């Protein structure tokens, strides 16, 4: 891993012996940034390859965040972050329709409880005005009128109507799915270990073989600085900032209408209370600077989440919690996104330090990446590019008539497997068959919600592994929660298999 752009020994060896996989553009990282770039680059007559070290698409930060489409008043005007937040937000309007991604424009409220917080939201208000975002100042009464459950101690709030919530994992799946449909390729369980520039292209050594490409896009999230170092680029570094969350039962999902923030501090946007697109309630995140990646939740962190959420919206959250998780923000050594050509290796483009609002900005980042690619290889649009993508049907959302039709076509749609989220066997089959397919339990959970409900898979998980075994023709021992060594079962005791 220590190899920098200059070290060629091993790569040269492999290049001689191995037949490399060839592509025009290699994207490292199938999080929201890599996925958005993949989708956009597949518009063009290019051979695009997306790789990720993980067993599934979805990234790391991209599947453990607040899932908010930020209004754009937070980043300082003039920064790349501010511009791309703006661009991204506007593009999500169009993309959510083209790709049938769940987005709800709920609007957001940033609450202020004291003088210094009022100053803070005043600053945000001015930010917003200067980049032409429709923000509004609300007094105490108006705040309570719009959101009666917030702490009545509230003094004022900043209202941003054009902000909302999104299903970030579904967004990645749809973006990747659309790219695949338009001719892109993907390789998972593929960790990039070394990058080297030669006269006939950039050679990238991965844990699953050698790749030769003209352009590399570094969308490696928290590890984007490692990829930069592989190319000899040492000016930038990233450290993780952990955010812990609690997810609550759908029964209380409608507690708030808007996304409710606290006035921000220097290290983050503070704890928020929000509904998710699935109807659960979400509270968090903490902001803890760490030396190395560590996605553990902690007793202190979860206590902070509860306490801070209660200060915003008083509610007995602990009685309704169904899951807790943590995500790691990629905090760069400069306080802005880096979306630019590498300073050391021609052909490498970095999307690094993509912290919040990276999810919101992702479509904007992708467009910017396309611009940068066009300086290296010609971009010629495919005549038959299809911008649309549809996810397999979700039964519980459909009118009876359509459910009935699906069941008539395949009885598995009538067979309920996950009782909490009402997911049928047919939907699980679809999750395993779709592109990109689910290959593990978490992949099924994130695509169709089975095991994501209030019993967290107690009832359906054993049944899902039976379906996986049948559909994928896998022995039980090979079924994992999320790839790698996350095996769920150690063996089959019946001796008949």
């Amino acid at each position: 891993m220590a190899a920098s752009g200059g070290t060629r020994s091993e790569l040269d060896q492999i290049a001689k012996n191995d037949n490399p996989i060839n592509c025009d553009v290699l994207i490292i990282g199938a999080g929201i940034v890599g996925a958005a770039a993949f989708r956009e680059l597949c518009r063009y007559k290019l051979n695009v390859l997306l790789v990720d070290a993980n067993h599934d698409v979805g990234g790391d930060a991209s599947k453990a965040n607040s899932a908010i489409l930020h209004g754009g008043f937070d980043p300082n005007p003039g920064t790349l972050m501010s511009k791309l937040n703006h661009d991204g937000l506007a593009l999500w309007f169009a993309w959510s329709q083209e790709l049938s991604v769940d987005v709800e424009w709920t609007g957001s409220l940033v609450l202020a409880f004291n003088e210094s917080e009022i100053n803070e939201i005043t600053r945000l208000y001015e930010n917003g005005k200067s980049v032409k975002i429709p923000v509004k100042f609300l007094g105490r009464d108006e705040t309570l009128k719009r959101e009666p459950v917030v702490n009545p101690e509230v003094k004022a709030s900043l209202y941003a109507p054009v902000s909302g919530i999104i299903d970030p994992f579904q967004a990645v799946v749809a973006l990747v799915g659309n790219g695949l449909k338009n001719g892109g390729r993907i390789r998972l369980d593929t960790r990039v270990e070394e990058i080297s520039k030669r006269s006939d292209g950039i050679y990238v050594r991965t844990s699953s073989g050698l790749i030769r490409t003209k352009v590399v896009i570094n969308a490696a999230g928290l590890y984007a600085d490692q990829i930069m170092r592989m190319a000899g680029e040492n000016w930038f570094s990233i450290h993780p900032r952990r955010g812990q969350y609690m997810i609550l039962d759908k029964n209380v999902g409608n507690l708030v209408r808007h996304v409710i923030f606290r006035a921000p501090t220097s290290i983050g946007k503070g704890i928020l209370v929000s509904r998710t697109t699935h109807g659960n309630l979400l509270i968090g995140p903490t902001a803890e600077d760490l030396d190395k990646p560590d996605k553990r939740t902690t007793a202190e962190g979860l206590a902070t989440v509860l306490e801070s959420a209660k200060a915003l919206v008083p509610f007995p959250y602990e009685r309704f919690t169904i899951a807790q998780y943590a995500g790691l923000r990629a905090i760069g050594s400069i306080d802005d996104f880096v979306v630019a050509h590498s300073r050391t290796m021609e052909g490498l483009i970095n999307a690094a330090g993509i912290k919040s609002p990276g999810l919101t900005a992702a479509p904007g980042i992708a467009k910017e990446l396309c611009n940068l690619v066009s300086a290296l290889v010609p971009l010629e649009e495919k005549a038959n590019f299809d911008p649309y993508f549809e996810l397999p049907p979700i039964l519980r959302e459909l009118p009876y008539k359509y459910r009935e039709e699906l069941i008539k076509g395949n009885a598995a749609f009538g067979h309920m497997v996950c009782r909490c989220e009402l997911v049928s066997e047919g939907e699980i089959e679809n999750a395993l068959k779709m592109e990109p397919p689910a290959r593990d339990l978490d992949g099924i959970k994130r695509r169709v919600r089975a095991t994501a409900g209030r019993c967290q898979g107690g009832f359906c998980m054993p049944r899902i592994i039976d379906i996986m075994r049948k559909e994928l023709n896998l022995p039980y021992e090979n079924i994992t929660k999320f790839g790698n060594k996350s095996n769920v079962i150690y063996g089959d005791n019946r001796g008949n298999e």
Partner: protein
Amino acid sequence: MLVAVVGGGPAGMAAAVAAKNAGADNVLLIERAERLGGVLPQCIHSGFGLNYYGRDLTGPEFAEYLRQDVMQSGIEVWLNAMVIEAHHDKTLVVSKPDGISFVRADVIIFAVGARERPRGAIAIPGTRPAGIFTAGTAQYMINVQGLNIGNDVFMLGSGDIGLITARRLTLEGAHVHGVAELMPFPGGLARNIQQCLKDYDIPLFLSHTVTEVLGKDRVEAVKVAQMENGYVVPGTEKLFPVDTLILSVGLLPEAELIKQLGLTILPYTGSAAVDQYFQTELPGVFVVGNGAGIWDLVDNVATSASVAGEASVKQFYEPSQEATLEPCGDIRVVLPQRIAIGVNNPPRIWFRVKRPLGVCSVALTCDGKTIARKGYASLRPAEMAEISLKLEQYNVIEPGDNLQLTVTPL
């Protein structure tokens, strides 16, 4: 008249049979699984049926006996059929492999059982690896699917399901490193502590909990510490190198369908308030078995569900003609919570205590006046106990009375 029974576990089967025997024209039993029996098919240990069938049976045997009763009674059974919605006019929406059906019933008996509380409900900090199972899920995977789910196991919670699963895992060759229980007393029956833990040298750590899960892909260890007033006692943290964590931290009634009917949910049962016939505030809607409150003995489940099944074909009692009953002090749960007045047979009252008690006396009171009293040599949280009212005691109760159940150590 159509009686629709939702759930084909012991409660649903017993209720369906009783309804049919009491003269219901049509009884429809709707079960979402591929077989009748509820959780019984996975309970391959014995100890079932001593009261209901007068013999010691395993779970699958008990289920089979009930299933025979169902089959012989001319009850229509739908398998692989899940009720996905319940409406106020007693219409049920059912998802089946041949389509969506709408069942318009005269009576609905909900016998939907309970779900286990998962890790997320108790917010154990740490990583989120594979290898964490609830006890009932583990029991299903071991006994029904025949799978090896772990080699080195730690268990949190000492309820009976957990204890039985700990023994089962041991018999399957796993090493159960220990069982932690947050309370200062075990959650399960004394019999199971002896036969499932002590007999197999599995240590029980009372007043302890799991404070952290470690491991990236699969569980690699758990941290366990002694607790006092909700806080870790410093210096008591121990690391257990296990690949599996089993949780036996409580059952919650499945109340989603009854919530759809707008019935209020009692915080201490997690289900709707029922009268002595297990009828809810909505005439013609009954809730039985673990869906009404958590029972430990399947015999009691079957007995009480039969009461509901029989009553369901008779007249419904007017809500105005009833008294209410609530648990007080060391009584945690009481069933029923409403008492219909003016019926001939006096009700049986079931209850559970919050902590183990020695010799004590349980009293049913109204405005400080004692209506009934019963002495017990001991009471345990793990066991549902009962008081059967005598007719003269029942007759004292007036509509609108607010009754209380209290316990006094002697």
